[in-house]
């Protein structure tokens, strides 16, 4: 049976129907309307409710740059996950064993220009640059994700406490963070990395700490505006504790700027980590860190470009990807630019 309401036809398929209200049942033969009966408990179709996630995804995909960014990020993630499939270990004749493709040296094949066997050529130790770039994505993604998590976790906590309690606590926390904010991010990271010494974990900590004040400021502002809203007072009036208020009611409503900042922050964290590795404060040399590769290649830049172009290009592409995706995400999450 087909119901007609507001000149639209709806089937009585139960999946599409939800509430029973009034409606019109129309009986037709061909184009001719035989009867148009108002039925007391007619049926209107369930309103297709779009989840926020699908709305955001659609907005992001609609924007070309954001979509390109998303593709780059997906490629990065795939190459990190499947690094051993894309660049599998190579059998070494001399040792009679498999060696990781990114560290296997072949001094007979140094400085090879890109060819069918070595897509990105080989470096000064005869290592496959393509394998190194692919495996480098693991380090970059790891450093980026963990550094951003460190700064977001601590920054969000500090911002939430400072914004929620206000007063003296807010003043003290914010002044301390202002001091940290006065030092340029990369400089702070260099100082911390120099103090902690080289190594993957230390790089993550160094880059992560540098990002804390930014998150704290953003979250503090959002918390201050959200905590004035009526639903927070309503929650208070139903006996919610401060922790419930902050974690269940206020923070989830402050997340969209944090998500955008985290996306953009991933790009800059990767860049900062590469920068630290480039000046020798980051991941130690044999690992295929893009910044370290760039640093190694610098010496041969005039004669042999591939050692510089490919890791450098990888850094640039990934940072670009995160920034484009972050931009798109911001547009999608910003209610003022709401054109859905």
């Amino acid at each position, binding site marked *: 049976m087909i119901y007609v309401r507001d000149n639209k036809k709806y089937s009585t398929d139960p999946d599409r129907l*939800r*509430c029973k209200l009034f409606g019109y049942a129309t009986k037709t033969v061909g184009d001719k309307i035989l009867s148009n009966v108002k039925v007391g408990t007619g049926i209107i179709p369930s309103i297709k*409710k779009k989840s926020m996630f699908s709305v955001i995804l659609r907005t992001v995909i609609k924007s070309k740059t954001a979509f390109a960014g998303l593709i780059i990020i997906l490629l990065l993630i795939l190459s990190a996950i499947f690094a051993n499939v894309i660049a599998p270990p190579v059998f070494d004749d001399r040792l009679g064993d498999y060696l990781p493709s990114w560290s296997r040296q072949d001094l007979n094949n140094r400085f090879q220009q890109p060819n069918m066997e070595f897509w990105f050529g080989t470096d000064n130790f005869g290592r496959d640059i393509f394998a190194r770039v692919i495996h480098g994505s693991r380090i970059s993604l790891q450093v980026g994700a963990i550094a951003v998590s460190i700064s977001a976790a601590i920054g969000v906590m500090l911002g939430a406490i400072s914004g929620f309690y206000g007063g003296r606590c807010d003043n003290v926390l914010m002044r301390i963070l202002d001091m940290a904010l006065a030092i340029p991010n990369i400089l702070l990271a260099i100082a911390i990395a120099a103090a902690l010494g080289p190594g993957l974990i230390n790089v993550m900590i160094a880059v992560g700490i540098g990002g804390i004040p930014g998150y704290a400021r953003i979250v503090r502002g959002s918390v201050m505006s959200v905590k004035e*809203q*009526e*639903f927070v*007072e*309503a*929650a*208070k*009036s*139903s*006996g*919610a*504790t401060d922790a*419930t208020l902050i974690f*269940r*009611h206020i923070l*989830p*409503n402050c997340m969209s700027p944090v998500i955008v900042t985290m996306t953009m922050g991933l790009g800059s964290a990767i860049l900062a980590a590469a920068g630290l590795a480039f000046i020798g404060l980051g991941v130690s040399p044999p690992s295929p860190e893009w910044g370290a590769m760039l640093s190694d290649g610098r010496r041969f830049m005039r004669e042999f470009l591939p050692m510089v172009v490919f890791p450098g290009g990888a850094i640039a592409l990934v940072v670009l990807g995160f920034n484009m995706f972050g931009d798109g995400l911001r547009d999608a999450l910003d209610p003022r630019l709401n054109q859905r």
Partner: protein
Amino acid sequence: MTESNNMLEIKGLTIHYVTDDGVVRAVNDLNIAIGRGESIGLVGETGAGKTTTALGILKLVPNPPGKIIDGEIFLDGEDIIKKSEPEMRKIRGNKVSMIFQDPMTSLNPVMTVRDQIAEVILLHEKMPAAKALEKAEEMLMKVGIMPDRAKDYPHQFSGGMRQRVVIAIALACSPELLIADEPTTALDVTIQAQVLELMKNLKEEFNTSMIMITHDLGIVAEICDKVAVMYAGSVVEYADKLELFKNPKHPYTIGLFNSIPDIGNDVESLKPIKGLMPDPMNLPTGCPFHPRCDKAKPECSEKIPAGYDIGNNHIVKCILFNQ
């Protein structure tokens, strides 16, 4: 009346907001008593201190700038002014809960309605989360929302349905006292009627006392047993509903009734009360209503009148009734 008969008894409550520009005297020497299962209407103009009174009962007056200067609030015979914050948290939502004016803003936009109801239950009752969710769905059914909408977010509901959800949250722990702060102001008339009907039924089912804050005398006539008329932070007249509607005494109450169009009486123009509500930062001396009162006497500006009982538990705070 003894204390045990009264669910809530407020004596001499005074709440001030201390701001840079001066002291806002929002509530002054307010006295109300509410029996078990009784509902009282708190009527008054905007700024008469109705909402501040309600927040005062929950001890949620924003501090600073608000401060409870004086008075006692007995809930079940216990003075809650003396209670600590953790003790108050156990009372809020459990013994006393509140329905806010605007259902559009009083629900958390990023939590499903079922989770929001379950949260209140979990805050006050020890039970596994799954059981709380079940109870939340039960509450939704009670307020007339089918459980298949339970996992929806507030923005997917209409205003009337959201207010139903708010009511479900307020009643989830079967509170003994429900404070409804203009619960129907933001709704259109047909929905208002539905929501009021629902509140009335649920109030009876849960045997809850209720404070209905409103400026709509029609709602009072519909739902309340007693009425307290507030003016400039204090109750100027307090009586049973029928008594007050038939026999209003205080000049302000009479003025209020004269400001409502009456379909039975064809009058050319309404008789509004002349003047404006006084600035709560600068209340007139004596009776706060005297500058607007037709029957004002010279002594009205000299001292604040006490509440005079004129029989039938009808209390009027006006010097005219001082026998």
